[in-house]
């Protein structure tokens, strides 16, 4: 299917900290949108993985947040911003295996310290900004081939 995108298509979803039940809905909405637009399956998969990991971090660590996406003929830009504790040492947080997830979250199988590396690996541009006591913003760009 040919790409069917004119201008920029935008969407947003609200994310609620602690809500494991609806976690994944925002990523699924983006996935559905990209499928409608005829985006290639491997690009959709990368976007879905990166977005879901970011969504889960908001659910696990923050009080609330927003996911915004912008789809243009060039690619997808995804921004996830939260109100939460923030990250003191981003370099450390980016290391595979580093996690501060509490035990009950680890019992669910989260907390491998692989989410941020997964986001980075699946995006062409990855940026993370954080202010301790305020929140964290992750921005990811995935280019169309």
């Amino acid at each position, binding site marked *: 299917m040919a790409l069917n995108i004119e201008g920029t298509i935008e969407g947003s979803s609200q994310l609620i900290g602690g809500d*494991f*039940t609806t*976690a*994944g809905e925002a*990523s*699924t909405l983006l*996935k559905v949108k990209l499928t409608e637009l005829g985006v290639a*399956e491997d690009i959709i*998969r990368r976007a*879905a*993985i990166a977005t*879901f*990991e970011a969504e*889960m971090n908001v659910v696990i660590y923050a009080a609330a947040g927003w996911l915004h996406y912008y789809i243009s003929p060039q690619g997808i830009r995804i921004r996830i911003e939260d109100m939460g504790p923030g990250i003191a040492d981003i370099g450390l947080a980016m290391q595979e295996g580093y996690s501060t997830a509490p035990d009950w979250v680890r019992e*669910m*199988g*989260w907390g*491998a*310290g*692989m*989410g941020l*590396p*997964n986001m980075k*690996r699946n995006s062409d541009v990855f940026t993370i900004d954080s202010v301790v006591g305020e929140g964290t913003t992750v921005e990811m760009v995935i280019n169309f081939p």
Partner: protein
Amino acid sequence: MKLLDVANALSLEVKSFKDGLQKDVTGAYVSDLLSDVMANSKQGNIWITLQTHLNIVAVASMKGLAGIVIVNGRQVQEEVLKRAEEEKMPIMVTQMPAFEIAGKLYRLLA
């Protein structure tokens, strides 16, 4: 090999989305860490795990996995099966532990 053939050969109890048994299986991945599955499983894989909560459905569907096999005869809650049905994701249960089911599946797919 089709998921149906795997389910029959290994006597898996299919708990959700029976229509999905027509999917082709590309291999399998064994892990109880969700981000590890997000990173390292491949499309069309069977995911062998002891995790049974709601998030496993989202992980499997984001990755385009063929299905989820729950080990040790663990119970899966109705809410999870319902979500799996909606997301078109087969969930199957085996009485075997992960090592045994993985070994049998490896032999079957090799």
